[in-house]
């Protein structure tokens, strides 16, 4: 996941104990009242005195060289205070860094933020202006003259891999191939993951199934468009308020791109209106800072929805080939995949993640995965909830379904026969620790959903998913006030509004004070040490490790206060049930002291009570889930309706169960949207045709049923509360589960995403023609 695991990473062994607060549903969520009353402040809600409004001029071409940019007329317009182009930003050398679950290369980041030599997709920024009003800023954009030399473009991943394809980067030679190629290619990298002997595996197989799948890019579809407001002061300091999943990473990227010291940039994360991986990348922030520097006033920038679609990262469009073999009694002997992933205009898709997650739900001896990362004339891809995984699951889980049917084995039993478990060797390296995959399958098997009767044109499908839990740098501070209440300052981003409550529950549990006595708040980049992006399902899992570590330091300080008061050694004091107590009868007869009592005495006994943590949390605690879906296919329109949906997932420990259910449901519905409707549609000029919510149709309330959820709890052994990341797994299984259900309903295997009405209708027509032809042949 981005970078190698550190040997110095923190693990805290799971502590089995009775919990009073963790695992309940708090009545008061820290963020909720502000959100239901309109008081919560998102980035676009913030305004600064004297602010200018910034706007971006974007490429109207899929690919073109920029011959010249003339901004003089825009600059001359009354009310325009600053214009920036490529000339205002330093070029960057090739340098890679982790940014969420994907890696970025600064040479490309600066080009994606503001085009330099060329534009590589419809919507690519070419200039930005700041003016005293939005209307003037928009007018100024029209006055900027850009001379383009339009070049041939390529959109589809398969086309981009052809030898005669237009090449996006003349200096890009495929990495991971020996000997180093001599001609440039859109294939930026080739990667592999292997286990055992694939030839031997296929030789042992009695049934071999090989299929090809294609998926279109889909967008994260957060409802809040990107927004930032920057203030560059005369002293060379920059403050940036922005909606981000990782303010520390954004600070690092802003500083790098603008050649500023880290200490001179402060990023304040605002309430976030949805991210799902899409707010792991800087787009507006460096532009706003530069415009503020030139315009000498604060600059606010908010994207329009069509800019969000055209220029912020969707997922990869993919082409996936899966070949698997098994014995007649249902044992998988070989699993092979070729993954071709679009990265958009610049290299670096979710391919590395996809490559290692392809088959990780199964205990396999012989695996071979080859992947290609392919540049095309689309916006640079970004992470989207389990980046890269739904597309490979589409292939693998539908092939599994076919194999199970071929063997005459129930599809859940087939998966149980091959299920990954503790000790399973993954094809990418580590052995799995204790996991809950089998439990989710067993619960699915006996679920009431499985015995619901199906009518004509209705079908049932099952599929499963797996995702990691990222660790990485995490910091937190706990301050115990003089009144015995506590404040946790966290540095991860509470992307959905659940983790700040989960943290409060955990701190309250540790301290032995009521949940209501703990306040949790996000700290800006000047308040804490570096925190990695909130990505890879790490928000609550890793953030709570820092919270526990910080709280335990505050507890140690409280034990020290008690020891000083009692005139004993600190190790003669223990913390139990929310009180400092003498460690044994021989220590002395002292009345236990509560947090509030200790807080009152703190000043005299050495100073205030606080604890802080700066740790690198170990990656671990992978999550697994099983989904069951019933659909009905309308044979006249090709429309697929989801009738029933059940999701069972291992959460390790559900800190705030109702919130986890909500995240499960949201992920499943995003997956349903991916499966049935969502796709990027480009015309033959390479321009995006559906850059709005009317034509890029995400699920609405009337499209979906209730989503039944069940939480399995197999504790993560490396977390004191057993927590696993839960945010990403739910989006993986819906695509294949629905494909399997459609097959069950109408006998057709859908292998091209999305399974939208026109595609299903066409498949139904083809089936009719085939049937008629078969009958004709039979009649002859």
């Amino acid at each position: 996941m981005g970078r190698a695991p550190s040997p110095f990473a923190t693990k805290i062994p799971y502590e089995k104990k009775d919990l009073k607060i963790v695992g309940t549903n708090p009545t008061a969520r820290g963020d909720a009242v502000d959100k239901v009353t309109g008081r919560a402040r998102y980035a676009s809600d913030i305004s600064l005195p004297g602010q200018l409004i910034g706007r971006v001029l974007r490429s109207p071409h899929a690919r073109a060289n920029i011959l010249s940019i003339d901004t003089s007329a825009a600059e001359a317009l009354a009310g325009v205070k600053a214009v920036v182009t490529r000339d205002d930003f330093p070029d960057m050398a090739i340098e890679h860094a982790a940014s969420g679950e994907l890696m970025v290369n600064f040479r490309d980041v600066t080009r994606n933020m503001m085009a330099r030599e060329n534009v590589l997709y419809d919507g690519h920024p070419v200039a930005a202006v700041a003016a005293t009003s939005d209307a003037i800023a928009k007018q100024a954009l029209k006055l900027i003259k850009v001379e383009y030399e339009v070049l041939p473009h390529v959109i589809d991943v398969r086309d981009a891999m052809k030898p005669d394809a237009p090449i996006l980067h003349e200096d890009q030679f495929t990495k991971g191939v020996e000997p180093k190629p001599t001609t440039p290619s859109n294939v930026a990298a080739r990667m592999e993951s292997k286990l055992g002997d694939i030839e031997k595996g296929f030789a042992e197989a009695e049934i071999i199934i090989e299929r090809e799948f294609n998926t279109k890019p889909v967008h994260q579809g957060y409802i809040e468009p990107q927004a930032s407001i920057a203030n560059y002061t005369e002293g060379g300091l920059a403050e940036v308020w922005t909606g981000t999943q990782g303010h520390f990473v954004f600070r690092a990227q802003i500083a790098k791109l603008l050649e500023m010291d880290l200490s001179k940039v402060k990023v304040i994360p605002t309430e976030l209106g949805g991210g799902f991986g899409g707010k792991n990348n800087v787009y507006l922030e460096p532009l706003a800072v530069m415009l503020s520097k030139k315009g000498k006033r604060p600059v606010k920038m908010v994207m329009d929805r069509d800019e969000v679609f055209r220029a912020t990262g969707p997922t990869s469009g993919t082409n996936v080939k899966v070949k698997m073999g098994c014995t007649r009694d249902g044992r998988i002997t070989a699993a092979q995949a070729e993954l071709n992933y679009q990265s958009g205009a610049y290299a670096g898709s979710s391919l590395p993640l996809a490559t290692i997650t392809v088959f990780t739900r199964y205990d396999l001896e012989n695996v071979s995965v080859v992947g290609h990362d392919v540049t095309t004339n689309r916006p640079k891809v970004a992470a989207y909830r389990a980046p890269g995984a739904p597309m490979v699951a589409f292939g693998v889980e539908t092939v599994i379904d076919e194999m199970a049917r071929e063997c005459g084995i129930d599809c859940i039993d087939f998966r149980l026969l091959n299920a990954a478990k503790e000790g399973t060797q993954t094809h990418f390296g580590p052995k799995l620790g204790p996991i809950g995959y089998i439990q989710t399958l067993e619960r699915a098997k006996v679920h009431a959903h499985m015995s619901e009767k199906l009518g004509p044109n209705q079908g049932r499908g099952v599929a499963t998913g797996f995702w990691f839990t990222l660790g990485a740098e995490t910091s937190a501070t706990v301050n115990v006030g003089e009144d015995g209440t506590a404040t946790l300052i966290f540095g991860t981003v509470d992307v959905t509004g659940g983790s700040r409550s989960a943290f409060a529950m955990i701190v309250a549990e540790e301290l032995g004070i009521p949940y209501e006595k703990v306040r949790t708040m996000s700290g800006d980049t000047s308040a804490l040490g570096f925190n990695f992006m909130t990505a890879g399902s790490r928000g609550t899992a890793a953030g709570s490790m820092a919270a526990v570590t910080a709280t335990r330091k505050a507890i140690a300080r409280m034990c020290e206060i008690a020891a000083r008061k009692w005139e004993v050694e600190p190790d003669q004091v223990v913390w139990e049930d929310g009180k400092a107590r003498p460690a044994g009868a021989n220590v002395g007869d002292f009345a236990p002291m509560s947090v509030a009592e200790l807080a009152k005495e703190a000043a005299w006994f050495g100073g205030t009570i606080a604890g802080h943590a700066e740790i690198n949390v170990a990656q671990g605690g992978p999550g697994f889930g099983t989904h069951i879906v019933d659909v009905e296919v309308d044979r006249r329109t090709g429309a697929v309706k989801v009738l029933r949906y059940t999701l069972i997932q291992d959460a390790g420990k559900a800190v705030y169960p109702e919130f986890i259910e909500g995240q499960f449901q949201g992920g499943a519905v995003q997956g349903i949207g991916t499966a049935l409707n969502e796709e990027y549609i480009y015309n033959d000029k390479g321009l995006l045709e559906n850059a709005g919510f009317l034509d890029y149709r995400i699920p609405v309330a009337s499209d979906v049923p209730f989503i039944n959820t069940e939480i399995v709890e197999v504790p993560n052994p490396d977390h004191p509360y057993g927590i696993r990341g839960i945010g990403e797994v739910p989006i993986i299984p819906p695509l294949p589960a629905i494909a399997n259900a459609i097959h069950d309903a109408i006998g057709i295997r859908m292998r091209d995403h999305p399974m939208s009405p026109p595609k299903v209708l066409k498949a139904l027509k083809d089936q009719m023609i085939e049937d008629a032809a078969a009958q004709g042949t039979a009649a002859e």
Partner: protein
Amino acid sequence: MAKQYVTTIVNGDNVEVLCDPTQTLLDVLRDEMDMTGTKEGCGTGDCGACSVTLDGVLVCSCLVLGIEANGKKVETIEGMAQGEELHPLQRKFIDHVALQCGICTPGLLIASKALLEENPDPTEEEIRYWLAGNLCRCTGYHKIIEAVQDAAAEMRGN
């Protein structure tokens, strides 16, 4: 273009504002009146984040001009709670965890309130179709539907 003088009643308060004739009601609320509770998700009438009522009628404020509010009553999320007392829908949204990131929430609450004023006892299907113009990307709608059902029951006195 010359600005126009507009008087409206927002959440019961008389408000006078100068607005550009091309400005949407959404922009007038957010930029001229500093009422940022109403959100913008699309600006094209497709997401419902900007839902308000105009003389009691549910509208997307991004599709209404500010000057159209002249002489009319506007109700926004800021007017939903009565002082400290949350509206039953607001309470039930919290109880049922019907919000995550919360960017859709003001619009959904305004739309749900308009629904219950018209139909105090809606079926699940009626709620789903009424709210079909309000996008939520986080929750999958499950808990929103439950919250509306529960609030409706409470408001009916059940």
